[in-house]
């Protein structure tokens, strides 16, 4: 079963706008990661946030984590056409011995030029 569930399933915006994607999960986590997948570069790691962190930034990306609500959000600012891709959240469960990544179904982001 998939641990994370992204919302919305699909998002279409204009270039220059901000895009926000949300992820909810069910059980306690060690960390949460966001990945991007497009046909050109495959699946690529974007950012990792640990369970004791609340917010992280990386370039135009901002990730928040609310462990009390078991949710995370990914904000992409000043979007570009090249940001068009599927975005997945993936969780690593707390206490697991092998740090297995469990992916959600993803959000398909389309940035129109």
């Amino acid at each position, binding site marked *: 079963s998939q641990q994370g569930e992204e919302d919305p399933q699909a998002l279409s915006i204009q270039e220059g706008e901000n895009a926000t994607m949300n992820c909810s999960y069910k059980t306690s986590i060690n960390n949460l990661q966001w990945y991007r997948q497009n046909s050109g570069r495959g699946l690529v790691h974007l950012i990792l946030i640990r369970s004791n962190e609340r917010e992280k930034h990386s370039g135009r990306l901002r990730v928040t984590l609310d462990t009390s609500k078991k949710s995370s959000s990914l904000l992409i600012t000043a979007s570009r056409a090249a940001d068009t891709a599927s975005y997945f959240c993936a969780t690593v469960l707390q206490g697991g011995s*092998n740090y297995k990544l469990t992916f959600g*179904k993803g959000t398909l982001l389309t940035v129109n030029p």
Partner: protein
Amino acid sequence: EAGVAQSPRYKIIEKRQSVAFWCNPISGHATLYWYQQILGQGPKLLIQFQNNGVVDDSQLPKDRFSAERLKGVDSTLKIQPAKLEDSAVYLCASSFTSGGSYEQYFGPGTRLTVT
């Protein structure tokens, strides 16, 4: 730094046939993963190796899927016999350590179509 290599990139077979996929991880990465990604879904972990030992194969359909990682480097994933529902992209990934703090690097995947 060379990335994770996979071959073939595409494969079309008939049901009940067998197929094998190959993966070469990033040099020095001890942990290797095989994922199955069905269209419209996120990747699902099939098997995880630490060096040449299996760490997790709880979601591997062992009646038809097998995987090995000889010498702790390259890995092969085999399906025998294939079913229609095995149509998917098979992704190989590697990481420096099995610790969850380290990102996984993914290969381009093999798109399998079973007819």
